[in-house]
């Protein structure tokens, strides 16, 4: 059986305005301070109009888990979240290198890896999604987004039919 697709925080680059509130919210929620260096979601802005936010994508056969030489990383089977065992993690950074998305941060103080856990400690789920002013962030799976995109295409066709 194939692995189920786990929900993760997905950013719509057309809606993201590059404000970086998600970074502040994440670090405040996890550490009680505002520090993008501790944020498990980061906004990347290359050209003035191209930007998106990136956090853990809960990959199948997660390369970070495979890369960890101390078996500090494991997957929570229910949610797909990558768990970090702080007693084993020594901050070597192999998981950071293994991640194709740059979604793992090494906490500069504790020297342990930090990965988005979908705000497991919050009743209402990922706080970045709640705070995102433009609803650019959502908790979803690629398959759900694909379905939505297909529906949008057909809706547009219908609207064109109505336009004289």
């Amino acid at each position, binding site marked *: 059986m194939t692995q189920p697709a786990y929900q993760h925080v997905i950013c719509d680059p057309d809606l993201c305005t590059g404000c970086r509130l998600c970074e502040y919210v994440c670090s405040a929620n996890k550490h009680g301070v*505002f520090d993008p260096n501790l944020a498990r979601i980061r906004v990347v802005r290359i050209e003035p109009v191209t930007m998106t936010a990136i956090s853990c994508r809960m990959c199948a056969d997660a390369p970070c888990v495979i890369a960890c030489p101390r078996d500090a990383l494991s997957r929570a089977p229910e949610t797909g979240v990558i768990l970090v065992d702080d007693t084993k993690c020594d901050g070597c950074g192999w998981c950071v290198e293994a991640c194709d998305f740059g979604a793992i941060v090494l906490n500069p103080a504790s020297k342990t890896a930090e990965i988005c856990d979908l705000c497991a400690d919050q009743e209402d789920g990922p706080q970045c999604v709640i705070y995102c002013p433009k609803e650019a962030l959502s908790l979803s799976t690629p398959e759900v987004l694909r379905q939505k995109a297909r529906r949008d295409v057909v809706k547009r066709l219908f609207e064109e039919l109505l336009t004289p």
Partner: protein
Amino acid sequence: MYAYTGKILHVDLTNQTTRVQELEPEFLKRYLGGVGLATRLLYDNTPAGCDPLGPDNALCFACSSFAGTTIPVGTKHGVASKSPLTGFVGDSLSGSHFSEMLRRAGWDGMVLKGQAPRWLYLVIDDDLVRFVDAQPYMGKGAVEVQSILREELGDDNYRVSAIGPAGEHLVRFASIDNDGRQVGRTGNGAVMGSKRLKAIAIRGSRPVTVADPKGLMAASLKLIKTSQGPGTVKYRTLGTPSNVLNMNAIGVLPTRNFSETTFEHAETISGEYLRDHYRVKSVSCSSCSIACEQWGVVRDGKYKGAKIGLDYEPLFALGSNCGIGTLPPIIKLVEMSDELGMDAMSAGVVISWAMECYERGLLTQEDCDGLELAFGNEDAAIEVLRKIAYREGIGDLLAEGTMRASERLAKGSEHFAMHVKGLEMPGYDVRSLKTFAAGLAVGTRGACHNRSLAYELDIKGVFDRFTADDGRGKAMVDNENFACILDCLVLCKFLRNCFDDFGPDVAAIYTMTTGIFLTADELMAVGERVCNLKKAFNIREGWTRADDTLPPRVLEDPIPTGPSKGSYVTREELDLLIANYYQARGWTADGLIPREKLVELGLEDIADEVGVDTVPAGQAI
């Protein structure tokens, strides 16, 4: 003390040394941050009468109180120096990831003085300040050099403030750019250029710690949600370019150097036209939940590839005001202004002045280096804009700003030199906005809509915009003080309609952030204090009553056509409104500040220097 670091970084560029100044919470509470703190640093670090482009002028940066937190549009910074355009206080603001990094590097602000022996840029890593040779980056654009430096320094986390060729060539209205946002007005980029400082790259490693994180997060979420509501709908949908058709409809859209107030091509340069044909995306400043900046891209034609976040003020200045009636050349011109590193508003107005001179035969084609500098000639506008940045030919004259250029050319061109105190006019023809006209005249940094905010009084119909009468002074003062509070906090003005009860709400947020107890009354007092401090700076620089005036065109030429036809501001009307304003400020009839007033505002330490011993205007002796 939370959020604040209580430290100011002083940099001496002549000797390439630094020192640290410690600030007390009581001091910070009186000026908050942004424009307030930057102006106070300017007052304390600049000797009276200094050359704005000399080593003694202090270029002062100050963070927002909320820098690096979740308070929406609370991460901005203020800059102040003695303006090379006006010779008075030159305070300016920018939306900014730079402010976040300045705070996280451990600084509430910076004071830059002196003049480097050769071109440098600063690299600030927390406490460590390095002076690095900038020669390889000379001539680079104000925006592109930021990416180049990040690449060289090898870390995307550096935020950079930089000047472009205009700042290097001391164009008097040069700007300082960070992430495509500008410290735009009053020529702070020229001051930076005069210090031979190409850029400042900052990287901070510290977290921002606040007194009440949970309370602040809750207050932030409420503001983020409110700011998606009716109070910001204008900014979120069309952005400020929505003003084009609104101003055109009521006959205040400056057209062809403020000679007319309606533009026959308003439709094709409007916010609506931008949205339908060129807009690709809304973009926000740091921590902003509104995202007013409407990015337009030109996809074909001779300006293919030009792209910019377009706001109303550059759009009017380089559009209708230069008689240019399509968006592609305007997008190109504004993009060039940003990359060359100059204030697109002042640039547009000085070019429109030159165009009128050309049409009247006061400047010949030969004077203009062979350019046909007529209204609507977009190719000539583009070439002359470039010449300004490099001070080539006619550009050298225009780089001096409208006031100096018109004084130098003379021949009656002063009549239509559209500036107050040397700062070019914003995008409202004030001949039919009389309260606002007076608001611009008394402005401490010259003709600025953002400092005055009095346009709201006229456009929203609080007062009859076509007449002037007694009793408008208090409203003018209240609006100016309110704008000033926002500039000091800093909170973006576009958030101003998102609070239930501004004073108590914002004072509470400030206390949650900094741990410094602030009442609503104390907050509101900051606006009056800093407005008076700016005025005090000007008085120390030799301000007199005659400086609070308007261009002759506003005072003599009736609007020729359109909905505001026939309107102009008579000298009697202007004098009446200014007298009202001084009285409401508690100043003398000559516009000076009584000693007691300064003491009352907590500015006793400067009362001896600038205060006068007399009774306020309008009060019996």
